[in-house]
């Protein structure tokens, strides 16, 4: 029998069998509810006299609309998006290629693995001021910042995913006289795809952190500038609108990535015990 699986709270309380039939509203209703609750809390906090620099959510929403209508937002993103997308492309392609090479070629592993581990774990954002200092206010410093913060995460996860291929699967493939290439193509990469995508998510998140940091630190352009400028002139509603926009954009990109993964690999089909 498939186990009756109530959650732990149902176990902690005396659990009648009847309770399992309780139908729950769909996930989207809950998301809506949780957005509404968060909005409400922000609104209340904003209206309470905590700080002038914390405007209520409704004012931020209005400012957001205004910035969209007047084109401020578009102008900022016209500056931020090209380096962001370039950087993302570089870390996705480059990161996977480096990760796969490090996993499959021993010399590459010996030479690059420690560096990747250091860059993944250490607070490498400390180097970003130097990057902006070196590359100036152009797109190059943004792209380099994205690479420093994102690429090691992608590469290291790809590496780990390939390392985690069950040896029995590789032995199976070799026992059927598959070529090295076939084994990589049909066994190793599909097996590693979950970890690789996990790495892409981390990398995308790192990329956003990197570009915002670069734009905040020195490059007076793009979305970072929109935040800094509006803070300087005390238009806190606009400042928060800009912050919300970049966080929302990162969520959208991550959701797209998730959709691609589901489309390509049907995540549930991968999970063999």
């Amino acid at each position, binding site marked *: *029998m498939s186990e009756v699986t109530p959650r732990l709270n149902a176990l902690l309380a005396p659990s009648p*069998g*009847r309770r*399992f*039939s309780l139908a729950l509203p769909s996930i989207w209703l809950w998301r809506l509810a949780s957005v509404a609750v968060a909005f409400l809390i922000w609104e209340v906090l904003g209206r309470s006299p905590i700080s002038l620099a914390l405007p209520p959510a409704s004012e931020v929403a209005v400012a957001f609309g205004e910035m969209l209508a007047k084109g401020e937002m578009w102008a900022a993103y016209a500056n931020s998006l090209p380096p962001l997308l370039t950087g993302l492309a570089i870390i996705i392609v480059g990161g996977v290629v480096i990760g796969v090479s490090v996993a499959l070629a021993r010399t590459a592993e010996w030479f690059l693995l420690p560096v990747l581990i250091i860059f993944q774990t250490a607070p490498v954002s400390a180097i970003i001021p130097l990057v902006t200092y070196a590359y100036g206010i152009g797109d190059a410093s943004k792209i380099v910042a994205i690479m420093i913060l994102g690429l090691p995460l992608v590469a290291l996860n790809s590496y780990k995913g390939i390392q985690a291929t069950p040896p029995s699967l590789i032995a199976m493939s070799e026992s059927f006289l598959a070529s090295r290439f076939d084994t990589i193509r049909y066994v190793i990469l599909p097996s590693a795809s979950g970890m690789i995508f996990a790495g892409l998510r981390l990398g995308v998140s790192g990329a956003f952190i990197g570009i915002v940091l670069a734009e905040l630190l020195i490059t007076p352009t793009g979305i970072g500038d929109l935040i800094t400028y509006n803070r300087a002139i005390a238009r806190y509603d606009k400042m928060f609108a800009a912050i919300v926009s970049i966080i929302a954009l990162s969520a959208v990109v991550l959701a797209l990535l998730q959709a691609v993964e589901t489309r390509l690999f049907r995540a549930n089909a991968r999970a063999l015990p």
Partner: protein
Amino acid sequence: MTLAREAPAAPPAPMPDEKPILVADEVGLVYGGNVTALAGVNLTVPQGRLTSLLGPSGCGKTTLLKIIAGLIEPTTGDVTVRGEPVRGPGPDRALVFQDFALLPWATVLDNVGYGLRVRGVPRQERDQVARHYIEEVGLAGFEARYPHELSGGMRQRAGLARALAVRSDILLMDEPFSAVDEQMRRKLQEDLLELLRVEQKTVIFVTHSIEEAVYLSDQVIILTQRPGRVSTIVRPDIDRSGNVDEIRRTPRYMELVDEIWAGLRQYVE
């Protein structure tokens, strides 16, 4: 004695020499609104005897045991212990788990004493009682060990000692030996019989092994598959007064195993 085939709906008559301690009356469980796990289960458990719930996987025997333990509330029907309806877990019943359910961070002594700790028994007394039962199940010397340092068989001995330590009249055992290897399983079965000679317990024993059920039980209740209901009740009536390792050689034992298999094979095919 022959196979006593009884109509599923009628509660079986109690054994003549024993009074019933636990009765299930029309117990049914429906979950998710439409999946019927158990339908109208009736059974009577005589005091001081070992009753097995035997059936293929998916027949709801573990679910039935959890209903008896008070962990799951049935949708219909009732379980009564000495005439009192079960409303949840109670001190009259103790459960031995298939996966042992030992706290990995606690020593054998603390694991065995857990039930007493829940009841607020002071440390010194708790340890004393725990030591007694640890010795009784043959784990003496392992009090300070952690579960991960023990073999599967030893872990279940600890689980058994924990259930014994709270001195419940009824011992519920959920496929307790299914997670250990065959040799150890036989040893544990023999030791359980020896133990029950000392401890006067009523045991309800869930198993999917025909051999195990016949070897251990005074009464075997055979459940059919989904929805689970009682199909047959068998009283092995094997003489267990002698050496425990003789039982498997008695003609009665072998005959019964064959008979039960003959009855059950239709559900497998």
